[in-house]
């Protein structure tokens, strides 16, 4: 398939100039042109990079909304102000389709120097040697991580390499509708309630208010994961699954019980809650008294409801939760501007002005000193709340699990399918669990 193996235009056959030959020559020429065109393009692209007048242009790509784009662009402009030789080629887009585009750019040999990535894909990219190992920079002091919580830093390590630096910290959060509970004289849930207690509480809420007490999270990998860790298991250990079909059966049965007791909405509403974006989470649309989300999503949820919201850890022992990188910054391994790109990451993580500018848009700032500054400065009530909860939980955080392995996105999809199979009553918990484990094994083996 290499272009060079294609026949290219050969010297004209000097003897005859009869028309069929002319036609053949023309066709050959065209073919050669078609084959050569991409090469010309590639050569031109190389030329751009080689322009060495002391200026560096770093391409950077992230996902997010308008607000994040503005903040990020301001922070990058600030960097250019301080380092006039470095300019940016900024590209951003909504979450939908981001990874398709990143993969396509990478496949086309034109990946950005610097890109945002999450734990769904970090291992996928790192395992294929697409990300630069940041460890040498960290060792040399060019990437300052001394103020980072160790477990947050650890959550960017894949196969001993620092594949990405956490752009912010985040953890699982159970958000509940405080107004609804107060109105009905119901107690608020608290961190540390067992799963059984949570379901009993939810059942009580359903009965009293008519609003289902809790959104069934059995198809939701983040709840399953926390629960597993509380059972002394994990989602993955090494390159294997960290759980068995029996574990999954118990998990599915726990929630079947909850559904049977009326503690959750009906399966179609549960599905809607799982499939929807954050602005239509059930706690916001009033279809459930709680939603299983990430703590840093509080401000976004708050924007979409007039009710007062509270947030706590997921049920069970809170040490099942960990300092999760909401997303990372990674550098493309083949980047010609790798050093400069790493310096930009360092700047975004540790420069007081930049960190203040970025706020908690990508989660709590990873630099603990600056996190304190940002949390003192914020005026957004919901953001204050999420920072307070995360700070409180940070004291009980367990050790970070390994970054999800290659095939994780498939495992997530399979959990959704199996969980919903059980929710809609198309399979018993045990059947759904067996299917799920079999599908996972196939997914991570390939």
């Amino acid at each position, binding site marked *: *398939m*290499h272009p060079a193996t294609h026949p290219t235009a050969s010297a004209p056959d000097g003897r005859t100039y009869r*028309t069929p030959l*002319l*036609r053949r020559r*023309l*066709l050959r020429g*065209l*073919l050669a*042109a*078609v084959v050569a*065109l*991409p090469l010309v393009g590639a050569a031109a692209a190389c030329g751009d990079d080689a322009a060495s007048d002391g200026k560096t242009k770093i391409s950077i790509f992230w996902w997010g909304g308008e607000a994040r784009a503005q903040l990020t662009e301001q922070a990058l402009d600030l960097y250019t102000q301080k380092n006039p030789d470095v300019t940016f080629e900024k590209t951003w887009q909504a979450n*939908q389709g981001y*990874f*398709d585009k990143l*993969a*396509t750019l*990478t*496949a086309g*040999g034109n990946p950005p120097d610097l890109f945002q990535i999450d734990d769904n894909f970090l291992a*996928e*990219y790192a395992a*294929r040697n*697409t990300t630069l190992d940041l460890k040498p920079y960290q060792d040399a002091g060019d990437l300052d991580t001394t103020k980072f919580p160790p477990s947050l830093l650890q959550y960017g390590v894949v196969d001993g390499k620092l594949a990405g630096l956490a752009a912010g910290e985040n953890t699982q959060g159970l958000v509940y509708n405080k107004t609804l509970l107060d109105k009905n004289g119901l107690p608020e849930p608290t961190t540390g309630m067992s799963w059984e207690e949570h379901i009993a509480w939810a059942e009580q809420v359903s009965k009293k208010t008519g609003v289902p007490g809790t959104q069934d999270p059995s198809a939701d990998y983040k709840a399953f994961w926390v629960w597993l860790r509380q059972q002394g298991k994990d989602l993955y250990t090494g390159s294997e699954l960290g759980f068995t079909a029996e574990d999954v059966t118990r998990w599915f049965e726990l929630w079947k019980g909850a559904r049977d007791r009326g503690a959750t909405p*009906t399966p*179609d*509403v549960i*599905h*809607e809650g799982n*499939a929807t974006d954050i602005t239509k989470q059930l706690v916001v649309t009033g279809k459930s008294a709680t939603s299983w989300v990430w703590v840093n999503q509080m401000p976004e949820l708050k924007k979409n409801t007039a009710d007062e919201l509270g947030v706590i850890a997921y049920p069970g022992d809170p040490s099942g939760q960990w300092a999760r990188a909401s997303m990372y910054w990674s550098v493309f391994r083949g980047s010609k501007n790798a050093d400069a790109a790493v310096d930009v990451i360092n700047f975004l993580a540790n420069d007081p002005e930049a960190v203040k500018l970025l706020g908690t848009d990508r989660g709590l700032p990873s630099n603990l000193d600056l996190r304190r500054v940002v949390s003192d400065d914020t005026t957004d009530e919901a953001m204050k709340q999420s920072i307070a909860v995360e700070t409180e939980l940070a004291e009980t955080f367990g050790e970070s699990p390994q970054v999800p392995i290659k*095939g994780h*996105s*498939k495992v997530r*999809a399979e959990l*959704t*399918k199996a969980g*919903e*199979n059980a929710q*809609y009553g*198309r399979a018993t918990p045990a059947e759904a669990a067996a299917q799920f484990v079999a*599908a996972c094994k*196939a*997914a991570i083996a*390939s």
Partner: protein
Amino acid sequence: MALTTAPDPTRRDTGSVRPDATRRGTGRIRHGEGLAGYVFLSPWLIGLMGVTALPMLLSLYLSFTNYDILTPFSEVEWVGLANYERMFTSDPSWWHSVRVTLSFALIAVPLKLAAALGVALLLNRAWRGVGLFRGLFYLPSLLGGSVALAIVWVNMFNREGAFNSFLAVFGIQGRPWVNDPDWALETLMVLAIWQFGAPMVIFLAGLKQVPTELYEAASVDGAGRFRQFVNVTLPMLSPVIFFNLVLETINGFQGFTAAFVLSNGTGGPVDSTLMYTLNLYIAGFTDLEMGYASAMAWVFLVAIAVITAVFFGTGRFWVHYSDGEDR
């Protein structure tokens, strides 16, 4: 792309043109104008090569590899028929998506054609305001596979959607159509059927071609409305029906956008809307198995080719060309 694969039966060559004359004609043209012809063709030719032919060949090659899109081509590993073997022997979700797609096409396509023909018959009369109605019925298919339309559909067929409110007027308790694994695919079928405008317009054009003398003759012979429809309209329309059938079947198999939007790109709830092309997309871009996805694409291409060939094969028994020279 599919459009170019199906020849328009309504324009079939009658075969009466003298072949020797044609050959002589082009032979003369070739000397003087051949070069100019190719030059004028070249933008299209380069497009065909660069955008269609080469990528297709590349994907054929990749279907025999473990290409995962992130790995450079040079490191791609040849795996022979492993992708194809996996598809047929050990991938239940592949088989599932085949079943979903087949049931979608088998139900939605005939109903869509029936709706198109039915409305075309109604709109073929010369009554006042018929033009407006033709436009209105055509409108949905102009929107085609648009994302906006799919979003509207999701909202209409929610539990709180307009459709259930409508049912409630009659005291009927609706369902959460799009969030119900038993009904999500059916909701998509209704969407596809509703977009019958394009085949309808083609049917209308076909109906205009039927000579009125035939109806007159039939009615003189005592044929009623129904007889006329069965013995005059349908045979005279058969090339158009054939054309629509082939096109709509190919379209039906390729249904992607609506399923993608409705399920947030997952094929859910519980894989009920996992259309073949959606499954292929997930394999390539979410699971990063581009080699496997390429293999799926080629199986798909061959399947559509076979189905189209079957249509052409059976067509000779029921497609009637009015010139009568080749049948």
